[in-house]
Structure formats: C-alpha cells, structure tokens
C-alpha cells in the first residue's frame, strides 16, 4: 500500500510524519535528537529505509546520523569534515580574507543509485562525499579550488553550500549552489567545476553581472528534463534551458520575487512552485497572506494558491530547504515555516492543510513516496 513519509528538520529536533496515500491523516513521531538543530534529513532513493540526518549545535558541533529502518532508530556516523589541503581564505563580510572554517552541514544528498554514497554541502562552503555510508568523508576540493574561491563571501546566514542536484540522466553531472557565490556545475563527477551564473543580475554587487557573488537561494529540476533548471535567487525567479549556461528571469506577475524555496511538480516539468516573501529586509509573506504561487508554464505566468493557507496576520518565513513534492498522482506538495507549521497539499497545490501546527521553526522538509 502506498504511503508517504515526511522528514522534517527543525531548530530543536527532527520529526517524521507519515500518512497513507490519501494524505489526510498524519502520524507525527519525534522529536528525534531533541534540542539539536536538524538542518536536513534525506532518504536514499535507492533504499528508502536508509535516511541520513545532519544534526548540529552551536555548543557541540556537527553530527551525522544514519537510519536503516526509516527513521525508527539512528546511529551516529563520522563527523570529520576536514578541508582538503591548506584551507586558504575566502572573503569575510568586510571584504578581508578569512580562513575557511567548517561550521555545519546544511544539506545532505544521497546518491540516486547507491545507498552508501552521499554528498554533504557545508558551511563554510564546500562539498564532501562519502562512499561508505558516512564512515568517512572526503572533500571534492575542485569546487572550492575553483579560481573564484578566494572571492566568495558569506550571506547573512553564513557561507553555505545549500543545494545539491544530481542529474539523473548523466551521473557525471551535478549542480550546486552557494550563498553568496552562485551556482556551479561539474561534468566530470566533481573533479572540476564551472560557475553557471550568466544572466543573473544582483544589484547589491559592485558588478551586478559578475561571474560569482550572486546569492542563489535554491535550485530545482525535473528528472525528465535535467537541462532545465529553476532558481529562486535572493531576488528574481530564474530559468535556464541549457543546464545553467545561461539564465533568464521568469518572475513574471509574482507580487514579489524575493523568496527561498522553489520546486517542480513531480509529473509536469513545466509546473513550478514558489513562496514569495516580501523582501530581503522583511522575511515574511506580503500583506500577512501566506501564498504559494504556481506556474504551469515554466515561469512568467503565475497563480496564487490560497485555499487552506492563512490569509491574514501570517508573518512566517519558508526557508530554502523547506519545500518538496511527492510522486503520487495527484502530486503532493509540502512546505514548512519558521512558525512551526508544515502545510501539505494532496492535489498539486489547489487546496492546503496544516499537517502539524506547532513544531519548532522548520529548517527543511523532504518527502519519501513509499510503495
């Protein structure tokens, strides 16, 4: 029987929400790792019972947890994230050189085919790989060693590598994004990288169209057309039809194009979702109305989705890893807020309901569609 499992990372622990295919009634378990920040959890596409979690704390540092039973029990694996060679420097907020220092894992991306292989995107920005289910980690240092590395600067949330997309049609190709350096692509399995930011324009930069320095908040793709990328930038919703070689803006009629999340419908590659946020100074929905906006045309033409979402006095944020879609028909869409709500739609966004109300601030939401 089909079921759905939501993996929710929060400021004070992880929660696992489960439902059958109807997605009406949800069982909540947790908090797992109570009191720790869980930036991200994600299950292996090759073995859904294998789940990895990033557990961190300003007091006690970084842990990586692994579950082999769908999140019932957990085991700490290796937490040594050592930069390759001499770490070097990037730019600090004031433009001075600052040594690369590991702080935390923002995002975990398991391999599409091997449950023991996974990637970790970390702050200060770097990409690590484990081939043994987290027993050991090695940096893919070609990314940080890209010539632009010394010029990368942190965004307000830290210099984090927060997005990792694996190309399902080309195992050598991977996309990543860093705040505030931009998007990068490898075509050789992570050995070498190139910035893919042509077409982006960021007015806060001395050169608004520079090769690096853009605050990319999130990338998304549909598995059937991995050369088409969608991006929620700090401001601007962008699209690329050539695997990031060039970008054009598709913000269209959005009431504000600031935001963090972006995702793609599981069965309609041109249907995308964003949650517009008022501005970079005011991280909450416009006019206190929480609205998901959907485009069925790959951008530019957008419609607000409001049914079941609070339309007054709502001042939460939706962070960059906190939206996902399941693969059921109709497609389920989920997102979590800094107010501790997780909202879900079992009809591709037409109607919404709060699956849970009062969790700690939500950092990430991932979904597993289980056979």
């Amino acid at each position: 029987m089909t079921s759905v499992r939501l993996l929710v990372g929060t400021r004070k622990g992880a929660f696992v929400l489960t439902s059958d295919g109807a997605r009406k009634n949800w069982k909540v378990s947790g908090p797992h790792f109570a009191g720790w920040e869980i930036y991200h959890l994600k299950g292996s596409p090759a073995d859904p019972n294998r789940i990895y979690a990033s557990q961190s704390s300003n007091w006690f540092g970084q842990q990586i947890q692994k579950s082999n039973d769908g999140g019932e029990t957990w085991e700490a694996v290796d937490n040594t994230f050592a930069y390759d060679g001499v770490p070097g420097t990037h730019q600090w907020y004031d433009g001075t050189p600052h040594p690369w220092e590991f702080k935390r894992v923002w995002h975990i991306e398991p391999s599409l085919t091997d449950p023991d292989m996974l990637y970790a995107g970390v702050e200060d920005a770097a990409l690590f790989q484990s081939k043994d289910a987290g027993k050991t980690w090695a940096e893919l240092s070609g990314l940080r060693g890209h010539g632009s590395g010394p010029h990368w600067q942190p965004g307000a949330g830290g210099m984090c590598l927060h997005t990792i997309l694996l190309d399902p049609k080309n195992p050598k190709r991977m996309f990543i994004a860093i705040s505030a350096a931009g998007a990068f692509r490898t075509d050789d399995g992570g050995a070498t990288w190139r910035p893919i930011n042509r077409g982006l324009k960021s007015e806060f930069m001395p050169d608004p169209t520079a090769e690096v320095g853009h605050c990319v908040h999130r990338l998304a793709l549909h598995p059937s057309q991995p050369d088409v990328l969608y991006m929620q930038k700090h401001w601007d919703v962008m699209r690329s039809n050539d695997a990031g070689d060039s970008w054009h803006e598709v913000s269209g009629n959005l009431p504000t194009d600031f935001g963090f999340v972006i995702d793609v419908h599981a069965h309609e590659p041109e249907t995308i979702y964003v949650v517009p946020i008022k501005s970079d100074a005011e991280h909450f929905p416009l006019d206190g109305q929480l609205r998901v906006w959907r485009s069925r045309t790959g951008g530019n033409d957008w419609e607000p989705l409001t049914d079941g979402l609070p339309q007054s006095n709502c001042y939460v944020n939706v962070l960059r890893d906190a939206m996902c879609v399941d693969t059921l028909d109709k497609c389920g869409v989920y997102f979590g807020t800094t107010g501790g709500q997780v909202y879900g739609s079992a009809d591709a966004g037409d109607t919404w309901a709060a699956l849970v109300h009062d969790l700690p601030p939500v950092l990430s939401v991932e979904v597993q569609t289980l056979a």
Partner: protein
Amino acid sequence: MIRVVLPSHLRKHANINGEVAVEIEGPATQQSLLDALERIYPVLRGTIRDQSTQKRRPFLRFFACQRDLSHDAPDALLPDDVIRGAQPFLIVGAIAGG
C-alpha cells in the same frame, strides 16, 4: 578513576547515565582525559573539542574544585582532587535563555 560530568545533551547523545569514570595512563591532563573519554565514547569526538584544532569548543567550559579550568593549558595537570576522584571534572555548556 577520574569522574566526568557531561552536559545533558552529550549524555543523551552518548547514551550515558550519570557520571562517567575514566581511567588514564600517564599524566592526568585535560588532553589525556578528553582523549580517554573519546576513546570510550567515539560519538563524543568533535563535540567537546574542535576536530581539527583540538581546541575547546567556544560554548563549553571546564570546571572543577570551584575553579574555572577552561583556559588551563591542555597538558597542565588536573587538580589533585580530580585525579583522586574526590571531585568531578565538569564539562558545562553556556547558559542560553530566550
């Protein structure tokens, strides 16, 4: 035996109830104590000291015998009462409110 008291998050993380008794061969210093503690509980690696620098994590302090030992050299001998087990070595997390 040296008695060590960990903050509650770390006790839970390492499945520890109450104090930990740690036996050290050779000089009993902060470094040898934490090395021994991490050998017994590998999941504590990186939680008390930074993995790369081996420095005490900034939001943790080391107290014993009504003294703050946080800034003692890692290779300085621990107080006699700690070495004899009369007093525990306290690893304390910074207080957070709000």
